[in-house]
C-alpha cells in the first residue's frame, strides 16, 4: 500500500516552500479569525459601561471569558495537530520546523491582538490606578503566556489537563495583571513554555514519552514554584511571639483607666501595669506567664485570665491594683489556645458573662476589617462556648456592647447573643417589623 501511494508534490520537490507557508498562513487565518473577532469584540463592547457605577468585576469577568476562549482554542488546535501527526496522514506533509513555527509562533498574533483589546478595556475601566503602557503590555503578555502554556501542555499531557492548567494560570494571572512590573513573570512563562515545547518535540521523536512529560512538567513548575511562593505557604510567625491579635491592653470606655503589659510578654513573664490617669496612679505587678487582662470588675479591680497553651482550662483571678491583692476566682473550660488568640474582650456589667473575640484572618492584607469568631464565657458556670462564627469586625475597636438581662447586643454590627441559649444571630428587618 505504502509502495503504491502517490507521492505528495512536496515530497517530489515540486511544491515550493513559499506556497506551503502561504497555505499554512491561510489556514491559520481561517481558523483564527472567529476567535480573533469574538476576543477583540467582547472587551471593546464593554467600553461604554466603563464609567458606570455598580459594575464591579464586570471587566474581569469579560477578561476571564476571553481567556477561557483562548485556552480552549489553543488546546483544541494543539490537539488536532498532534492527533494528525500520530493517527491520520496529513494532506500536506509539513517539515517539523515549519509545523512548530505555525503551531507556536504564528498564531501568537491572535492573543496579542486580543491582549491589546483587553488592555484598552482595563485602561478604560481603571483610568485612575494603572499606567497605560504597563497595563497594555501586561494584558498582551498575560494572554500570550496563557496561549503558549496550553499549547505546550496539550501534546504532552493531552487536552483536559492542559485546559485545567490553563484555567488555573488564568486565575493566577488575573490577580497578577492588575499590578505593575509583572511583564517579566509572564515572559518567564512564555519562554519556559517554548522551551518545554521544543524539548517535548525532541523527546517524543526519540520515543521517550514519559521522560518528556516529566521534563515538561518540571520545567513549567519552575515558573510557579519560586522560593517566595514556597515561603509564603509556610507558617512564618515566630512561635516565641504572642499572636499579633492577642489582648495586650484594656481600658475603660473613657480611656481614663487602663491595664497593659509594661514589658514584652515574650521575655517569659507577664508584667502588667495599671494606670489611672485621674490621679496619676500607676502600679505594676508580675503575673504568671500567659496571663491576660480581660475586663474591669470595678475601677480598681481587674479580671485576669491565664491559660497555658496546651490546656483547655482558664484560671481566673481578680487583681485589686490599689491594694495590690490578687484573689483566685476559679476557672472556666474553653478551647486550647483561646485566650492567646483572643483579640478583645468585654465583661458584662454584672460580671456574669465575658465576650471574647477570636480573630481568624484579615479581610484582605493590612485591612482594618477581619473575620472573627465570638465566644461567650459564663463565668458563674465556668464554661465558654462559641456563639457565632465568621463575623466581620473592625480591628481598632472593641465591639460596642449593650447588655440586657438575657441578651447581648453588639451595637453597630447588628448582632445579638441570647445569653440563655448561648446562640448568636444577626438582627434582620423582621426583628423590627412591627409598627404601632
Amino acid at each position: 500500500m505504502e509502495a503504491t501511494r502517490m507521492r505528495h508534490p512536496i515530497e517530489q520537490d515540486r511544491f515550493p516552500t513559499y506556497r506551503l507557508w502561504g497555505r499554512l498562513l491561510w489556514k491559520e487565518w481561517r481558523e483564527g479569525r472567529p476567535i480573533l473577532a469574538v476576543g477583540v469584540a467582547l472587551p471593546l463592547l464593554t467600553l461604554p459601561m466603563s464609567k458606570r457605577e455598580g459594575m464591579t468585576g464586570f471587566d474581569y469577568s469579560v477578561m476571564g471569558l476571553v481567556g477561557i476562549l483562548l485556552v480552549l482554542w489553543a488546546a483544541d488546535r494543539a490537539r488536532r495537530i498532534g492527533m494528525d501527526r500520530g493517527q491520520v496522514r496529513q494532506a500536506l506533509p509539513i517539515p517539523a520546523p515549519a509545523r512548530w513555527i505555525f503551531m507556536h509562533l504564528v498564531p501568537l498574533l491572535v492573543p496579542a491582538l486580543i491582549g491589546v483589546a483587553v488592555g484598552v478595556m482595563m485602561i478604560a475601566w481603571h483610568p485612575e490606578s494603572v499606567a497605560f503602557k504597563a497595563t497594555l503590555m501586561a494584558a498582551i503578555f498575560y494572554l500570550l503566556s496563557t496561549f503558549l502554556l496550553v499549547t505546550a501542555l496539550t501534546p504532552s499531557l493531552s487536552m483536559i489537563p492542559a485546559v485545567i492548567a490553563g484555567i488555573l494560570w488564568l486565575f493566577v494571572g488575573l490577580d497578577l495583571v492588575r499590578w505593575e512590573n509583572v511583564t517579566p513573570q509572564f515572559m518567564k512563562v512564555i519562554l519556559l513554555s517554548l522551551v518545554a515545547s521544543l524539548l517535548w518535540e525532541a523527546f517524543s521523536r526519540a520515543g521517550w514519552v514519559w521522560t518528556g512529560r516529566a521534563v515538561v512538567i518540571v520545567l513549567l513548575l519552575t515558573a510557579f514554584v519560586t522560593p517566595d511562593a514556597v515561603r509564603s505557604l509556610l507558617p512564618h510567625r515566630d512561635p516565641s511571639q504572642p499572636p499579633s491579635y492577642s489582648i495586650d491592653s484594656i481600658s475603660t470606655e473613657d480611656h481614663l483607666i487602663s491595664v497593659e503589659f509594661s514589658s514584652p510578654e515574650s521575655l517569659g513573664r507577664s508584667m502588667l501595669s495599671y494606670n489611672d490617669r485621674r490621679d496619676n496612679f500607676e502600679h505594676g505587678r508580675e503575673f504568671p506567664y500567659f496571663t491576660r487582662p480581660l475586663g474591669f470588675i470595678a475601677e480598681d479591680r481587674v479580671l485576669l485570665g491565664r491559660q497555658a497553651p496546651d490546656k483547655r482550662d482558664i484560671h481566673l483571678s481578680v487583681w485589686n491594683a490599689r491594694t495590690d491583692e490578687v484573689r483566685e476566682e476559679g476557672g472556666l473550660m474553653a478551647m486550647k489556645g483561646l485566650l492567646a488568640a483572643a483579640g478583645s474582650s468585654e465583661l458584662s456589667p454584672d460580671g456574669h458573662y465575658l465576650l471574647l473575640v477570636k480573630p481568624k484572618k484579615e479581610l484582605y492584607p493590612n485591612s482594618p476589617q477581619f473575620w472573627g469568631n465570638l465566644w461567650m464565657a459564663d463565668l458563674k458556670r465556668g464554661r465558654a462556648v462559641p456563639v457565632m462564627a465568621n463575623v466581620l469586625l473592625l480591628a481598632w475597636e472593641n465591639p460596642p456592647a449593650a447588655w440586657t438581662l438575657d441578651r447581648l447586643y453588639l451595637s453597630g454590627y447588628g448582632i445579638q447573643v441570647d445569653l440563655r441559649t448561648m446562640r448568636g444571630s444577626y438582627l434582620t428587618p423582621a426583628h423590627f417589623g412591627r409598627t404601632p
Partner: protein
Amino acid sequence: MKRLLWKEFRERGWWALAWALAILGISLFSHGQSFYGEQTMLTSPLQALPLILGLLAGAGAYSSELARSHSVFSRPITPRTLLAAKLLFAAIVCLGAPLLAAVITWCVAPEPYRHLATPSNMLLGALGVAWKYWLVYLLGLSCSVVVPSLAGGILTLAAALLPLIAALALVDLYLFSGYVQGSSASVITENLHRYAGRSGWVFGAWLGITIAGLSITRFAVVLSNDERIKRFTIVFLPLFLICGIAGMLMPSRVAARLFLHREIGWTHISPKGQYALVTEFRRPINIVLRSLDNPGASFGHARYLVRMNDGMRLSLPNIDFEWWRWNLDWNWITDEIACAYVLNKERLYLIYPGSGESREVSLPGKVIKLHTVSPDGRLLPLEIRSERKVPIPKTSLTAWKPYRQLITIDIPTGQILDEREVSPNLPYIWWHDNRTLAYRNSLSRKSETQYWRIRKKLTPIPLDATMPIQ
C-alpha cells in the same frame, strides 16, 4: 440510568474530578461557615473557579453523543433519559463535594464549634453551595447541544453573550443618558431602572440559552449543525429580547419588589438595650454570592427608631435633620435620651425616643467630641471647634484662627451653662462630682489636675417628673 451515569463518569471523569475538587476547596475554605449556619461572604477571585469548571463540564456534556450518534441510536435510550442522566451526574458532583466538605469541616472543627454544625445547617449549607454550580452546569449543557465539541459549546456561549454585552452597552450608553428617564428622575429611581434593565437582559440570556438548548436536546443527535444552530437561535432570540425589554420597561415599584431586599446596615443600640436607631438598606438580590462591595446606598436606605423588647417601630422626631447624611453621629446618653449631630454643623439634637420628641441646641461652634454625662445624668460636656478673628502681627490684617472649647449643656433645658477655651490636647476629662468637671493635659504625666465648677444655677426638676420638653 445506572449505566448512563457510569458512562458520564467515564467520559467526563476528569472534568468531574477537577470540578468536584474545586467545589470541595471553595466549600472548605470559603463556604465553610455556611455549614455552621452562618452567612458567607466570598471575596476571593478563586470563587469563580468551580463556576468556570462547571461551565466547561457542561459545555462538553453532549460532545460524545454528537460525535458518535450511532452509540445512542443503537440502544433503547430516550433523549429525556439521556438528559436526566447528565443532570443527575452534575447534581451528584455538585451536592456530593459540599456534603463531603461539610463532613470534613465537622470532623476537623474543634470540639466546641461542633454544636453549631447541626445536620440541618450542614445540609442547607451544602445545598446553598450546590444549586448555583448546578445551574451553571445547566447553562453549559444547553450550549453543548448546538455545535459539537467542548470548544463548540464555549463558542456557542460566547456567541450568545455577544448580543447580551452589546445590549448592556447600548442600554448604558444610550437609553440611560436622558432619553428614558429624563434628567429630573431621582438617582435611586434611575439606578433601579438601570439595574432592572441589566437584570432583564442577563436573565433573558440565561433563560434563552437554557430553554433553547434544552428544547433541542430531544433532537440533538439527529439534526445537522446548521439545523441545530437555526433552532437554537429561533428560541433564544425571542426569549432574550422579551426578558430584556420587560426589564427595561419595568415600573420602579415592581422592580423594587422583584430585585431589592431589606438589609440591616447599622444599629445604634442604647446602653441597656432598650432602644435602637436602625439604618436599613435596600440592596439588590445577588443570587450567586454575597459580595462586600455591593452598592447598597445607591438603592436607598431608611432610618427608624425601635423598641428592642418587642420590635415596635417608634416615630422619629420630626426635626430639620439631614437624615440621609452618612456622617451622622448618633450617641445614646442614657437609655431615654440620645444625642445626634452632623459633623461640622453648629447644632445638635437631644432626642427622647419614649415620647418621640426632640430639642435643637444651637452651638457656638462645630461638634468634635462628646464626653461622659454627669453622674446625675443632668449635664453633658462636649468639645466644639470655633474660629475667631485675630490680628496678624505687624500688619493691619486679620485672620480666622481656630480654637477649641469645652461647653456644658443642661440636658433637660438644652441650655448652654458654661463654655471654656481648652487646650487641643485634652482627652482626659471626668466628673469630680455632679457639678464639677476635672481635666488633665494628656501630653504631660506630671500635669496638675484642674477643676471646673459649673456655677450657673440649674432649673430645679421635680424628682418624679419626666424630662420636660419645650
